[in-house]
C-alpha cells in the first residue's frame, strides 16, 4: 500500500490562502464574496477529488521542504485526515454563504479583513488535517491561532479585545508553553516526528515521561478546550456568529480535538497507552469536562454562551472516544467530529439568524419566537436532537459507537457518564425549543413585525439541518473512513 505522491494536498491548503490578495485588492463587496465562494468550492472539489484514492486505502503524500535535518513540512492524506478535511471544507462553503448574509444583514465594519482571515484560518485547518508529522501539525496549529485572533477581536471594542487577549493567552500559552517542549522532548528521544501507525514513542521513554507528555499534549492543545483550559471558548463568543459557527463549532475546536486524536494514535500509540493503563486517566479528564460543561451550560441565559458550553462538553466526547482506546470508541470519536460539526453549526446558524432578525441574544427573551421564525426554530430543534444524540440525526450514530466503545472496554462508569450527559444535553436544549414554540410571545423584546432572517441566512441552516438528518440514514463516507482508519490502526495494513 505505497502512498502516491501528488501535489493535491498542497493545492487544497493553498486554495484559500491564494485568494487573500484578490480579497484585499478588489474593492467591490460582491466581487470579494464571489472570490471567497469560488475559493471554497475549488477547495472542496480538490479535497473530494482525493477521496477515491483514499477510499481504496492508498494514502497521498507530498513533501514541501525539509526545513530541519529529518524534519520536513510534509503532507500525508490518510482516511482520518480526509474525513476532517471533507467536513471543514464542505462547511466552509455553507458558512461563506451564511456570513455574506450575516455580515450584510448587520452591515458589519471591515469585512475585507474578516474574509481574509477567514480564508487563512481555513487553509490552516486543512493543513492540520493533512499534516504528516508533529512539526507540520504544530506549524499550521500556530498559524490557525494567529489567523483567528483578528476574527475573535473583530468588534474592536474593549470586550472583544480583552477576550481576544484571553484567547491568545490560552491558545498560544498552551502551544508554546506545553506543546513545543513536549514535541522537542519527543524529537530528542525518538529522533523523528513522523506520525506512525502505532506511535513512535514506545520503547523510547519511561512510563512517567509518557504520562507527563500525554498530559502536556492533552492540555497543550488548548483548542480542544479540555477543562481547565476551556475559559477562552465562552469568551470568544463575542465574535460575529459565523465566526463562532465555523471556528468554534468546526475549525478551531475540532482542530484541537483532531490533533489530540492524531497525537494519541500517531505519536503515543494505543498499544503503548494500553500497556501503561493510561486510558483511565484520560477517561477521567474527559468525563469530568463533559459533566462539568453540561452543568455549566444549564444555567447560561445567553444562547451563544450555552452553545459554547455544550461545545466544550461535546469536544470531550471526542477525547473520550480516543481515551477508551478501543476500536469502536475511536470510530465514535472520529464520527463525532463530523456529526457534531453539522449539528452544532446548525445551532449557531439559528442563533445568528435569530439575532439578525430580532436582535435578541438571551434565551429568556425568545418566548414564542417560533411563531415568527418557524423554519429557523425547526432547524434548531433538529440540530439540538443531533447534538443530544437522538434519531433521526447523525449525532445518534457517533454516540452509538461511543457507547459500544465503553461496553467494549467494560468501562461502565463511562457509559453512565455518556448517558447522563445526554440527559443533561436534552435538559439544556429542549427548553429553548419549548419556549420558542409554546411560550407566550412578547413582542416587547424583539419588536412586532419580525419575520424570518434574510434568505442568505436561512438557506445554509436549512442545508446543514438537512445534512445532519441525511447523515443518520447514510453516514457512509464518514463511517467508512473512520472504520478504515481504525482498522489500519489496530489491524495494521
Amino acid at each position: 500500500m505505497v502512498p502516491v505522491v501528488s501535489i493535491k494536498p498542497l493545492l487544497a491548503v493553498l486554495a484559500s490562502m491564494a485568494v487573500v490578495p484578490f480579497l484585499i485588492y478588489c474593492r467591490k463587496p460582491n466581487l470579494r464574496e464571489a472570490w471567497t465562494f469560488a475559493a471554497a468550492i475549488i477547495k472542496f472539489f480538490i479535497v473530494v477529488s482525493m477521496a477515491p484514492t483514499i477510499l481504496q486505502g492508498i494514502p497521498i503524500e507530498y513533501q514541501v521542504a525539509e526545513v530541519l535535518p529529518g524534519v520536513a513540512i510534509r503532507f500525508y492524506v490518510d482516511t482520518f485526515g480526509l474525513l476532517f478535511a471533507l467536513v471543514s471544507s464542505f462547511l466552509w462553503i455553507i458558512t461563506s454563504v451564511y456570513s455574506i448574509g450575516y455580515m450584510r444583514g448587520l452591515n458589519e465594519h471591515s469585512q475585507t479583513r474578516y474574509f481574509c482571515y477567514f480564508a487563512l484560518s481555513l487553509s490552516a485547518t486543512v493543513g492540520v488535517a493533512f499534516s504528516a508529522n508533529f512539526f507540520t501539525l504544530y506549524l499550521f496549529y500556530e498559524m490557525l491561532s494567529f489567523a483567528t485572533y483578528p476574527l475573535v477581536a473583530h468588534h474592536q471594542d474593549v470586550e472583544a479585545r480583552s477576550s481576544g487577549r484571553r484567547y491568545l493567552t490560552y491558545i498560544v500559552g498552551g502551544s508554546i508553553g506545553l506543546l513545543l517542549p513536549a514535541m522537542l522532548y519527543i524529537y530528542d528521544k525518538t529522533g523523528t516526528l513522523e506520525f506512525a501507525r502505532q506511535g513512535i514513542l514506545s520503547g523510547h521513554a519511561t512510563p512517567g515521561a509518557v504520562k507527563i507528555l500525554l498530559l502536556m499534549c492533552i492540555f497543550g492543545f488548548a483548542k480542544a478546550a479540555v477543562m481547565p483550559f476551556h475559559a477562552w471558548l465562552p469568551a470568544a463568543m463575542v465574535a460575529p456568529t459565523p465566526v463562532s459557527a465555523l471556528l468554534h463549532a468546526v475549525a478551531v475546536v475540532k482542530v484541537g480535538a483532531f490533533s489530540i486524536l492524531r497525537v494519541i494514535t500517531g505519536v503515543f500509540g494505543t498499544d503503548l497507552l494500553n500497556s501503561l493503563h493510561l486510558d483511565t486517566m484520560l477517561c477521567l479528564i474527559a468525563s469530568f469536562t463533559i459533566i462539568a460543561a453540561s452543568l455549566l451550560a444549564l444555567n447560561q441565559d445567553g444562547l451563544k454562551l450555552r452553545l459554547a458550553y455544550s461545545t466544550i462538553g461535546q469536544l470531550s466526547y471526542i477525547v473520550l472516544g480516543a481515551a477508551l482506546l478501543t476500536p469502536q470508541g475511536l470510530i465514535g470519536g472520529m464520527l463525532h467530529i463530523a456529526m457534531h460539526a453539522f449539528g452544532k453549526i446548525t445551532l449557531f446558524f439559528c442563533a445568528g439568524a435569530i439575532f439578525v432578525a430580532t436582535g435578541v441574544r438571551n434565551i429568556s427573551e425568545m418566548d414564542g419566537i417560533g411563531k415568527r421564525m418557524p423554519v429557523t426554530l425547526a432547524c434548531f430543534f433538529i440540530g439540538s436532537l443531533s447534538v443530544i444524540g437522538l434519531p433521526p440525526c447523525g449525532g445518534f450514530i457517533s454516540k452509538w459507537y461511543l457507547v459500544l466503545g465503553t461496553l467494549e472496554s467494560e468501562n461502565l462508569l463511562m457509559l453512565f457518564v455518556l448517558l447522563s450527559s445526554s440527559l443533561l444535553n436534552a435538559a439544556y436544549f429542549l427548553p429553548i425549543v419549548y419556549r420558542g414554540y409554546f411560550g407566550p410571545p412578547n413582542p416587547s423584546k424583539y419588536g412586532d413585525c419580525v419575520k424570518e432572517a434574510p434568505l442568505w441566512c436561512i438557506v445554509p441552516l436549512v442545508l446543514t439541518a438537512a445534512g445532519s438528518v441525511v447523515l443518520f440514514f447514510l453516514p457512509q463516507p464518514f463511517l467508512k473512513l473512520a472504520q478504515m482508519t481504525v482498522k489500519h490502526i489496530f489491524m495494521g495494513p
Partner: protein
Amino acid sequence: MSQHFPALIIVIPLFSALMVTVAGWFNKRLCFPISLLSLAAVLYSSIGLLMQVLSRQVVQYRLGGWPPPFGIVYEVDYLNSVVLVLVTAVALINLIATRISVVEDFPDKLGPFYTLYLLFVTGLSGIVVTGDAFNLYVLLEISSLTGYALIGMGKEHAPLASLHYVFMGTIGASFYLLGIGYLYLVTGSLNMVDIAGILPKLYGSKVVLIAFIICMTGLFIKMALFPFHSWLPNAYADSPPGVVGLIAPLTTKVMVYVMLRITLYVFKPEFSFASADINTAFVWIAAFGIVVASVLALSERRLKRFLTYVLIAEVGYMVGGLWLANRAGITGAILHIINDAAMTLCIFLAAGNILRQSRSDAFEDLKGLFRKMPFSMAAFVVAALSIIGVPPTCGFFSKWYLISGAIEAGQYVFVAALLFSSLVNVVLFFRIIEIGFFEPLDDHHHQAPEITRREAPMGMVISLVAVAVGLIVLGIFTRDIVTKIIQFAIPEGIT
C-alpha cells in the same frame, strides 16, 4: 583577484571611507553612492569568500606576506565566513533603507556620517575575519569609536548614554586586551591558531585560567550580557534611526562571535567546557539574564526601549546556547547569531519607519498604524512572530536547536527561561499589535483622520519588506545552513 578577497573586504570600505571624507568636503551628493558601491563590492567579495570556504576548507591570507605567527594572517573558515556575509549584508541593507532619514537627520554632516558608517563596517568585518588576537583588539576599537560617535548624535540624552557606553566599552576592551596580554605572557604568541597549539601544555596554569576569565568578562561587558547590560538600553534607545539599524543587529552578535571564536578555537573546548559546574553556572546566568530582561521589557512604554531589552534577552539565548556545550546548543547559538541579526534589523527598521512617520514611539501613539502604514506594520508583525518563535519564521528554528540542546544537556532551567521569554514576547508584541490594529486612530475627530501619517517612503518600505521576506526564507533554508555550514563550524570534539 579572488585570492585577495580577504584583504579587499577590509581595504575597500577603508578606502571608500577616505573617499567619502573627501567627497564630504567638496560634493555631499557623492557620499551615498560611494558608500553604496563599496558596500556592494564588499558583500560580493564576502559571498565569494563564503563560496571559496565551501569549496575548500580554510582560506588563509598573509598580510605583508609574512607567515604566521610572525605576521598577521586572516583565517576564514566556516564559522566566520557566514558571519562575515551577515555583517556586510546587514550593513548594505540598512544603508539603503535609511538613506532618506539620514539626509533628514544630518543634512550638513553627510560626509562624516558615511565615513564613520564605513569605518564601523570595516572594524566589524575585520574583527570577524582576523586570525590575530591583537589585531582583533585594534579593529574592535575602530568599530567602538565610530559606534560611540554615531550613537552620540542621537536625540535627548544620547550624549550622556554614549559617554557611559564609552566607559563600559573601554573597560570591556581593556579587559580583553589584558587577557590577550596574559596569553602572550605564557605563550609568547598572538596568532590564535598558534596560541591554541601551545596552550594545551599550560592548561594547569593559573595565568591561563585568569586570562580566560578576563577575556570572557570583557566580552560579556561588550555584548551586554545580563549583569553588564545597563549601558545598552539608553545607548540604543535614543540613537538616530540610521544608526540603530546598523549597530543594534551587529555589535552584540559580533561580540558573541568573538566569544565563540575564543572559547572554541583559542581555548579549546577541552579547556572551556572542562568543568560541568562552570557550564551550568554560565547557563544559569544566561537564563537569569533572559528572565530579567523579559521582565524589564514588560515595564517599558516606549517601542525602542522595549526592543533594546528584547535584544538583551537574545544575548542570553546565545551565551546560554554556547555553554550548553553540546552540538545542538552551539548550533543553536550560531544559527541564532544569523537569525537574530536579521530579526533585529527588521524590527528596528520597522520601528524606525514608525518613528519617522508618527514622530513618537510611545505605545499610545501607535493607534491605527495598520491603516496608515500597512506594509511597515506587516513587516513588524513578521519580525515580532519571528522573535516570539513561530514557524516558519527563522526565529523558531534557532529556538528549536537551543531548546533541544538544553533538553539534551538536561538544563531544564534554560528551557523554562526560553519558553518564559517567548511567552512574554507574545504578551508584549500583541499589546503593541493590538493598539496598532484595533484602537481607533483618534477619538475626537472621526472624519478624515489627519493625513500627516502615511506609509514611509518607497525605498525604506521596499527594503524593509525584503528583510521581512528574508526572515521566512532563512527559516525555510535552515537545514541547508546547518548541514552545509554550521555543522562544520563546530569543532569535532563536541558531540
